């Protein structure tokens, strides 16, 4: 069967996805971004670079990750649910795909001091791991509140030799960790490589992170066909914070006729002020180097988001998601803290898979009444990470709930 395919070739040469994206950073960073872009575009076409990355993805990371039919949940819901098992990657989430790609670029560019920001700690752990492997210095900026709720990941990063710098400004979460990482980069740009963990930031980062993560979707296309004999699934679902796991799955499917749904963190409800539903409730603006949608007040100050999951607790979103939302190519929905907690338990009980709280938001969407999923459809959900890091948060929430 011939597939219908539409062209999709964003971003443009200046890093814009229509009005989104671009480079909104101090002039000091421009030479570094130019140089990064140049090295990346060369590496992308370079056989040796790609071979090295593919070997690492296979033998260090454990790729390819399985596409797994969740039989029990499929039976319960009456459609076919496929899980792309990114939780089975080394370090426990999709983040390592991008960290490996970027550290190879750092090596190429001769920069041996690595900095990163982290929210849930998954990107921090992935970066700490690859930095340890390559023998590079690694500094991870992390909000004080996140350090508290992600103790396990802090310990893992320390074990692998990373230095954690607690961030006490603003919301004490991912937004402020990102500010501090950017300030560090502005001050040490000559010898430092900033490994950004999501498809956010100034061009070329959103493109580069998306490309490194798109191994998820590329594998999925082949696996789905092999397993079902069908050309394409009906729907794709992933959770969206900054949006890298979602774009990793979605991007290779964008030219095809597949319905795509991103699920944002609805926190305590999108009609409260306590959520992180950037596309659902946000406005156009500039944050962390890119034009995109963001949560802000009437004075243009960035407002504090809320989500039970540290990885989604972010007031911005990658510029490409803003574009995909505006162009209506991807639908964006929300799931609340409570729905995510229920989904966390449900997936654990039904399939014996403990998902990350971030991922649990995408899982929660499966149970929403108006989700538009029809009987017998094939739905692929990106199981972006495992939930070991979240067990104490979930334990506390359950205690509260049943007290």
């Amino acid at each position, binding site marked *: 069967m011939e597939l219908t395919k539409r062209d999709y070739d964003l971003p443009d040469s200046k890093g814009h996805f229509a009005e989104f994206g671009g*480079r909104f950073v*101090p*002039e000091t960073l421009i030479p570094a971004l130019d140089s990064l872009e140049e090295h990346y575009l060369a590496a992308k076409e370079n056989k040796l670079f790609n071979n090295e990355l593919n070997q690492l993805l296979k033998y260090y990371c454990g790729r390819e990750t399985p596409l797994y039919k969740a039989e029990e949940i499929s039976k319960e819901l009456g459609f076919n649910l496929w899980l792309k098992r990114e939780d089975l990657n080394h370090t426990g989430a999709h983040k390592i795909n991008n960290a490996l790609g970027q550290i190879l670029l750092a090596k190429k560019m001769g920069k041996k001091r690595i900095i990163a920001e982290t929210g849930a700690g998954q990107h921090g752990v992935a970066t700490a791991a690859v930095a340890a492997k390559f023998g590079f210095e690694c500094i991870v900026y992390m909000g004080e509140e996140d350090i508290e709720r992600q103790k396990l990941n802090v310990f893992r990063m320390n074990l692998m030799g990373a230095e954690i710098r607690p961030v006490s400004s603003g919301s004490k979460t991912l937004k402020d960790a990102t500010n501090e990482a950017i300030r560090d980069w*502005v001050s040490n740009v000559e010898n430092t490589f900033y490994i950004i963990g999501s498809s956010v930031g100034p061009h070329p980062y959103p493109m580069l992170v998306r490309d490194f993560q798109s191994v998820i979707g590329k594998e999925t296309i082949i696996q789905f066909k092999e397993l079902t004999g069908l050309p394409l699934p009906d729907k794709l679902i992933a959770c969206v914070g900054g949006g890298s796991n979602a774009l990793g799955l979605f991007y290779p499917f964008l030219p095809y006729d597949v319905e795509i749904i991103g699920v944002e963190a609805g926190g305590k409800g999108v009609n409260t002020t306590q959520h992180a539903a950037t596309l659902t409730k946000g406005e156009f603006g*500039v944050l*962390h180097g890119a034009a995109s949608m963001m949560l802000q007040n009437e004075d243009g100050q960035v407002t504090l988001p809320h989500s039970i999951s540290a990885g989604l607790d972010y007031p911005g979103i990658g510029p490409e998601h803003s574009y995909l939302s505006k162009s209506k190519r991807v639908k964006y929905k929300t799931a609340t803290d409570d729905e995510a907690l229920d989904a966390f338990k449900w997936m654990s009980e039904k399939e014996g898979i403990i998902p990350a709280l971030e991922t649990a938001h995408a899982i929660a969407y499966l149970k929403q009444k108006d989700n538009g999923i029809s009987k017998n459809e094939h739905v692929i959900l990106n199981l972006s990470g495992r939930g070991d890091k979240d067990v104490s948060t979930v334990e506390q929430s359950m205690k509260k709930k049943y007290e």
Partner: protein
Amino acid sequence: MNRIQKLFTEKREKLIVYLTAGYPKLNSTKDLVLSAIDSGADMIELGIPFSDPQADGPVIQYSNEKAIKNGINLGIIFDQLEKIRQETSKPIALMGYYNQILKWGLNTFISDCKSLGVDGITIPDLPLCEANEFCKLSKSMNISPILLVAPNTSNENITKISKKAADLIYAVSIIGITGNDLSSRTELKTYLSRIRKYSSTPFMVGFGIRSHNDVKWFNEYSDGAVVGSAIIEKIKNKNDYINSARSFVKKLKGNHG
């Protein structure tokens, strides 16, 4: 000719004082600006506080955070500017991050600046590659878009940036954020003479400038020195912040009496 263009035709030592609007008190802006001018500031750069000031070190971050808590916003800043303009004819530039300007509306922002007698605008997170519209609109209203260059900006880009800005550029003294330490004078000299050679406009230098000696030295190699973090630090937690500002600005100008 606007006030900035005029000031930078004068060949003499110039001190540009940065103040955060709404800091330390919501309504301290006017008195602080006017006392800085009384004490010898040749130009004022007034910062619009932002929740996420990427290019700023801890001192200015703190002043931004405090001013926002005080209740400052762009509407209030424009009211304050209106009153300030009635009492001084020194050049005033606004410095703000791009998000707030977008939120106000780029066009409206620039025309409001025009009607309130603002002479220049600096947007630290708007580099050359994104600055086309901003520069075009500003120039059409006779406001100077003050673009920035850094020590790692290439010669070619220094020329491009200065041409695009047309009136004045702001040279960041160091690779870093506001309030960082300065690099060696030898290194600085090489950098500043590179700008002198490749810039088609006058340029002022800022970041890490703290003393009269610094101000004098930078004026030898550029067209003006900006002092920001050092003065914000001086007025931090002072009840008598007006007098602290006055005596510090006088010292920066070399008037100790």
